């Protein structure tokens, strides 16, 4: 197996144009497991862990640009204000995995259980892809098209993901069958957009891709508007709003039974997590 070591993104893209079968590797926390289990034997690995552009994040005109090679450990340290992303990052694997694993890796693997993915979905993030021929930007919900399936072309690399900063509280939660270092059985990211008067909720590990719950989102945004809550977070909401929101989120899940959990439990957990996340967000804005 060849290991290719480009020093710059341009060099990497030139290699990828000529050797589209070369598999990019950054932290290797998914790929090396596949190699160990003998599930993958790519003819070549393309090491993208040392490309400067991928290792950066920056703020730009109200957007956050997160390089594909930024590790979860750095997200926890350097981006504390992006609460849901930090919460997702902290739930990834073990400290060792967080030191190596990257959001770009979550995107490349495109597992519905990827912890960062519901956060990207809730933020309506875009994924920036590059090839020797140029760059393109794809909305996250069009990037991931199935379990471990994306629209990434063989000559492309994932460069970054970006999203417009959202003002308002939010959170990420996931359930698994132990208290740490666990692959999500179900996960929920909820973001409250104070400027847009919307609530966005994304579900991980309960469908072939990351799912949004548009019906639940519309329902709760409407209920908040009806109660005058956007203008006055102290306004009282009917007690059943959070419960019904949870039920509608649960209805949006499309889970299956597998070795990690049952479909029935996954659906149920989505409802509970979404309801709790909404309550926390409402309380946070009220307290702010």
């Amino acid at each position, binding site marked *: 197996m060849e290991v290719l070591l480009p020093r710059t993104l341009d060099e990497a893209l030139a290699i990828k144009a000529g050797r589209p079968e070369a598999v990019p590797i950054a932290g290797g926390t998914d790929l090396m497991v596949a190699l160990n289990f003998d599930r993958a034997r790519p003819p070549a690995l393309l090491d993208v862990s040392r490309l400067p552009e991928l290792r950066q994040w920056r703020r730009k005109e109200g957007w956050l640009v997160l390089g594909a090679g930024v590790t979860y450990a750095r997200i926890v340290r350097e981006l504390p204000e992006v609460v849901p992303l930090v919460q997702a990052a902290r*739930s990834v694997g073990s400290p060792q995995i967080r030191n190596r694993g990257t959001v770009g890796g979550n995107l490349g693997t495109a597992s519905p259980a990827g912890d960062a993915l519901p956060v990207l979905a809730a933020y309506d993030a875009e994924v920036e892809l590059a090839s020797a021929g140029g760059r393109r930007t794809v909305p996250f919900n069009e990037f991931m098209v199935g379990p471990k399936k994306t629209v990434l072309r063989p000559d492309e690399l994932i460069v970054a993901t970006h999203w417009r900063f959202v003002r308002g509280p939010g959170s990420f939660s996931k359930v698994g069958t132990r208290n740490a270092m666990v692959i999500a059985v179900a996960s929920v990211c909820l973001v409250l957009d104070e400027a847009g008067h919307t609530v966005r909720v994304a579900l991980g590990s309960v469908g072939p891709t990351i799912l949004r719950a548009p019906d639940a989102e519309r329902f709760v945004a409407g209920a908040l508007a009806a109660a005058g809550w956007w203008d006055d977070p102290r306004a009282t909401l009917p007690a059943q709003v959070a419960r019904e929101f949870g039920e509608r989120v649960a209805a949006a899940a499309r889970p299956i039974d597998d070795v990690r959990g049952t479909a029935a439990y996954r659906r149920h957990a989505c409802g509970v997590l979404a309801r709790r996340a909404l309550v926390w967000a409402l309380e946070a804005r009220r307290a702010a």
Partner: protein
Amino acid sequence: MSVGTLRRTRGGVGSSARRVDGVPKVKGAFQYGSDLWAEEMLWGQTVRSPHAHARIRGVDIAKALSYPGVRAVLLAADVPGRKTFGLEFADQPVLAQDRVRYVGEPVAILAAVDPEVARRAAERVVVDYEVLPAVTDMEEALRPGAPQVHEYGNVLHHVRIVHGDPDAPADVWVEGYYETAMQDQAILGPEAGMAVPADDGGVDLYVATQWLHVDRQQVAPCLGLPPEKVRLHLAGVGGAFGAREDVSMHIHACMLALRTGRPVRIVYSREESFFGHVHRHPSRVWMRHGATRDGRLVNVYARVLLDGGAYASSGAAVITNAATFATGPYEVPNALVEATRVFTHNPPCGAMRGFGAPQVCFAHEAQMDRLAQALGMDPARVRLQNAMKTGSVTITGQVVRGSAPVRQVIERCLALPMPEEPAAGPRDPQALPGGAGNVSRGEGVRRGVGIAVGYKNIAYSGGFDDSAEARVRVFRTADGPAVEVHSAAAEVGEGLHTVLVQVARTELGIEHVTLHPPDTAIGSAGSTSASRQTMMSGGAVQLACRAVAEELFRRVRARAASAGRTLRGELTLADGRVLAAGEPVGEVDNYLDEPIEARRTYHHRPTQPLDERGQGDVHVTLAFAAQRAVVEVDEELGLARVVQLASAHDVGRAINPQGVEGQIEGGAAMGLGLALMEEVQLDGGRIRNASFTDYLIPTFLDMPPVVSAVVEEPEPGVPYGAKGVGEMATLVATPAIVAALRAATGRPLNRAPVRPDDLIGLAPPVASGPPPPAPAVPGPRPVPHYHGLDAGQQELMRPESD
């Protein structure tokens, strides 16, 4: 050396001496079996069955053999000697001959110049299978017409214990059905070893194992070699817990080394490790407990099924243990126990920490809680009221002669401080059920408390002449006297080697003790299992040290006599000196012109096998433990967090208190795993989660603080009065935690591990029909009986011909 520079001998019995292997292990310098390496070494690979049950029509190795870099491909026909091996019965093929009986059974082995070539070549071995119907359910296996795993049927062993009058009436009856899952030992180091061909036509095998001699007993006949030509050396062992009692890669590596004339190393991957060793038997247990109105146990019925998978392993001994401990550490005047170890086409099961006791402890402790509830009594009181003590009679009719501080362990356990109640208001999610998943700030979280008491045998039972040998040599160095201890006992991570050094220090008063590498150049030390080595190999080192001291004292007296002096009083050793009646006579060094060496073997008190009514003096020493668990459950999400485990253990005497604590904590972690997450999930005999991605074991965020107390009531007749402590925490942790979960949720949880679905009622309790009828095989010599060191030499017999 003057008295002023006297150096005290530190690190003896009773002190928390520093581990002899501690520093290299912490620094990463310790060489484990998977680190073995030799010039010109080849890499071995195993081709395994993808089917639970199939006939092998043919194997085509041509493509593999011609693959560049491959040096040998071997099949069943290439096994030089006996074609089968086994710990108790030689029923397991070295390589499958005409039939495979479980997914993962070895069919072919090969050696190649590097591991990648070996893997690619393994894919080129073409096996033509005729898939046959498989039986993968233990009750199904007992029904007439079920596919037969072996020609002698689907029952390895059945134990019936009839004690008192099993029809004795009682005021109150409680009944229950319980299941435990197949658990993996999750050894940190996978199966690993290296075979090096020797000039004499023999082979040296370096292997991570629990018992070198029983391995040799199985390896040598299969290689067609006399035992002396098969020399085993202990490689660094990364945990065992029963997983290394059976032969795994041993014979394969030797065959490949002898065929190629080169060292061959085999290291299993984590996935392969799940097929490479036996697991804890999954269990189904039906129990009925009868008591008087004031809470005295009168009569217990237990029907126990253990699924042993495709081969015997140590299953006959496991089911015997499960049967004899089925009613718990309580006085039970009348009992009927029917326990069957079944064959299925699942992966084989055998030894794992607790060895049959955890499965029944899970059931009898749930029953004790049920009884307490039916009687309106406190669960601890019911247990105290029925607690076994010295002089009690077990259900096998054995009078408990040794220490049996059951009441004390319960009382000490309950007296340990409870964890603090959580403060009001939002809580840190990391400390709650769900942990790092950030799922709760305290909403829906309820606490529960549960207790469990259990007991188990130390060392081997049932009439087996359990023994351990050790050699001790005392000699002079530039730095003063030194001791070398040679024992074949395997250090598997539990701290035995430190214990042996402590014993030598205490017996000889010499601090400088080194260990000879364990190998088969010395006699058997027996297995590092059954919580036996502190007693057995500790006893052997003690005997050898005492023999050395005797010779030393003879020299001391002789020299005194030649100087015309008579030494008064008893001679003793301390701090590098010889004392007479407590007064210094001289330095030990002065008497070591010639080194002194002694070799001794320790035997424990003989035991008996069970008779046809399941009666007999089967166990040599019993150890008891009580545990209290405090859990928090997220009632909506069905997630659990153990807040605290409080544990009191009957250890006789703590040789190394820190080591004892380590065993209690580690054992509790393993029991916690079975309570909450650990399960080898099977689908038609195929393991669905053969990796640490999906076979989950507890992390730091799952393991709570463990507060422990030791009850030191010395066991009469054993060295230092010490009992082993390796297993007891495991068997009580699971039922204590599940009892706490029941208390928190009010749900009748009857299967371990408990899943989130169970905790929120998405899944009903596991149900069962009536217990299956006892098979017609039990008799004076049930099929077959336990032979210990004669391992690998027993043929399984058809029941009717036995």
